[in-house]
């Protein structure tokens, strides 16, 4: 008998739905098991706010609906929510001191959609401050520990990736059936790769950004973090919606994403971008990528080499565009309407004191870079230049998709590294997102699927990038990789 038949924290979302429908488990039992798991794994620091009472109340309501034969697509499913989603009545900090004590009086559209469909929110998960980071080490709540840190390696704890590191750790450690994340340059996909789970960044515009603490508005996108591709499809179906409150939300039908998981990729052309073979790429990443091509070929698809010539310019363009938008978005934190206020002798001093004490070092760096590149005399040289390069990057992808149906790349350039590493030089940390940022700049959907592990035992993911609003192909190809890799059952050492 598989462990999932007896332990509700080992189920996938799809299995839990079936178990609930068959009355093999109740929503309260499912929720209680995850509350216990959340408590047992507190050392990971994945959750920054636990809401067990609210979760149990919601689970009881779910059981009542299920008993009447009612209930939504996620009825009774316990989820973790990244702490950048505004949650009515539950503190929302985005990992920043400047937002400590902020309790939203409204619910973000994405989380409201999940609750409407019956999901049970277990609590809020840790993340890099304002989602700025690739290791979950910039949070005011402290770093998150990757559950893949080997037992007995307490002097060298691994990062879960970032910025959605708490969500990734919770899903990997089985303290939530699934979680929400947000991805600006890789913040869903890279931590998914680092923790051996599935992470899907939808097309820009697929999920509403309303009620999500903003980092870079032309890049931010919410998405699911799960333990199977099917679960990602199920969650995305609930998270996605047209929302008049987000002017960039796209008014188009939400397909039945799970129906796309036919396993049939025969005849598909899969692009292999030669520019992603970066200098110094570890042999094990190269080998895994090759393995991915072989798996897809065995399933009847045809890997073909493509060229995305602007690839090397994606990261520098991103590190102009994203900080520029962040400097504008974060101007709202001024100590007047919400969050921290540090007094000063004048209004100006109050602003400056509040922001000096409220923002951490990485956020200050990015706000200042953004302020500089948008300032008089530098706008054309930096910001305008970056937006032009961004046009070229999007054009590269558009040209590639004239001939291929999806693109296969590694997700991250390494297995998880240790807390404290790559922190002396910001650019070294930025390089973590070398494979994920290009698709973000072009607004394209991308999924990371666990595909293997490195020599050190750390997980490695492969990324599938698709055409805009073609999450279905991304999921279908991702599902084939998942089946071939057979990593679904892999459990980390530090688990509930």
């Amino acid at each position, binding site marked *: 008998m598989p462990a999932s038949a007896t332990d509700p924290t080992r189920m996938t979302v799809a299995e839990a739905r079936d178990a609930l429908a068959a009355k093999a488990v109740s929503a309260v039992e499912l929720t209680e098991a995850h509350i216990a798991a959340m408590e047992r794994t507190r050392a990971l620091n994945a959750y920054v706010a636990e809401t067990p009472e609210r979760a149990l109340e919601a689970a009881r309501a779910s059981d009542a609906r299920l008993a009447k034969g009612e209930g939504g697509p996620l009825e009774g499913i316990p989820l973790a929510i990244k702490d950048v989603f505004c949650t009515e009545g539950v503190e929302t900090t985005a990992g920043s001191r400047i937002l400590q004590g902020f309790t939203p*009086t409204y619910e973000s559209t994405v989380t409201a959609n999940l609750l409407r469909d019956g999901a049970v929110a277990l609590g809020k998960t840790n993340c890099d401050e304002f989602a700025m980071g690739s290791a979950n080490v910039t949070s005011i709540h402290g770093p998150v520990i990757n559950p893949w840190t080997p037992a007995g390696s307490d002097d060298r704890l691994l990062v879960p990736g970032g910025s959605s590191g708490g969500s990734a750790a919770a899903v990997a450690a089985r303290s939530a059936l699934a979680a929400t994340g947000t991805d600006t340059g890789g913040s869903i996909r890279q931590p998914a790769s680092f923790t051996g789970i599935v992470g899907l960044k939808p097309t820009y515009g697929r999920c509403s950004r309303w009620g999500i603490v903003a980092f870079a508005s032309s890049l931010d996108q919410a998405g699911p973090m799960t333990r199977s591709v099917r679960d990602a499809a199920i969650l995305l179906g609930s998270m996605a919606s047209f929302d008049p409150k987000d002017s*960039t939300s796209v008014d188009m039908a939400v397909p039945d994403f799970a129906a796309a998981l036919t396993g049939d990729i025969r005849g598909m052309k899969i692009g292999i971008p030669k520019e992603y073979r970066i200098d110094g790429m570890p042999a094990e990443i190269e080998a895994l990528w090759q393995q991915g091509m072989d798996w897809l070929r065995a399933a009847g698809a045809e890997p073909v080499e493509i060229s995305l010539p602007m690839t090397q310019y994606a990261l520098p363009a991103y590190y102009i565009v994203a900080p520029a938008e962040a400097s504008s978005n974060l101007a709202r934190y001024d100590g007047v309407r919400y969050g921290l206020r540090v007094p000063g002798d004048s*209004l100006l*001093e109050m602003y400056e004191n509040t*922001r000096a004490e409220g923002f951490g070092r990485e956020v*200050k760096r990015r706000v200042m870079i953004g302020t500089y590149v948008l300032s008089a005399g530098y706008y054309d040289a930096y910001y305008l230049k970056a937006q*032009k390069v961004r046009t070229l990057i999007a054009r590269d992808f558009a040209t590639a998709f004239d001939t291929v149906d999806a693109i296969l790349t590694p997700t991250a350039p390494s297995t998880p590294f240790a807390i404290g590493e790559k922190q002396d030089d910001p*650019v070294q940390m930025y390089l973590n997102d070398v494979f994920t940022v290009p698709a973000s700049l072009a607004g394209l959907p991308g999924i990371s699927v666990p595909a293997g592990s490195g020599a050190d035992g750390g997980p490695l993911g492969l990324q599938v990038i698709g055409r805009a609003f073609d999450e279905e192909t991304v999921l279908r190809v991702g599902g084939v990789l998942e089946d071939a890799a057979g990593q679904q059952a892999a459990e980390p050492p530090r688990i509930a």
Partner: protein
Amino acid sequence: MSLDKATVARIAHLARIRMPEEDLDSMATELSRILDWVEQLNAVPTDDVAPMTSVAPHTLRRRPDEVTDGRVQGKVLANAPEAVSGFFAVPKVVE
């Protein structure tokens, strides 16, 4: 591009972040390093390229100019560090 301390102090002021004198040097080094790195974009010819203005190829929607929300003063002020008589309160700005 190497930023000097005076430039960093000016950026910090524009960003409304108080930055003590002793932090300016290290911040100048870090910001200069990032700016040096992004300047590789200068190698890309972009004279005939339009800057990206919209990620997805869609035009912004219009809507009727109607009030659809409001009368939630309590909610708006609920998280204010200081609220007085239904307003956000700030240090005195007019003598």
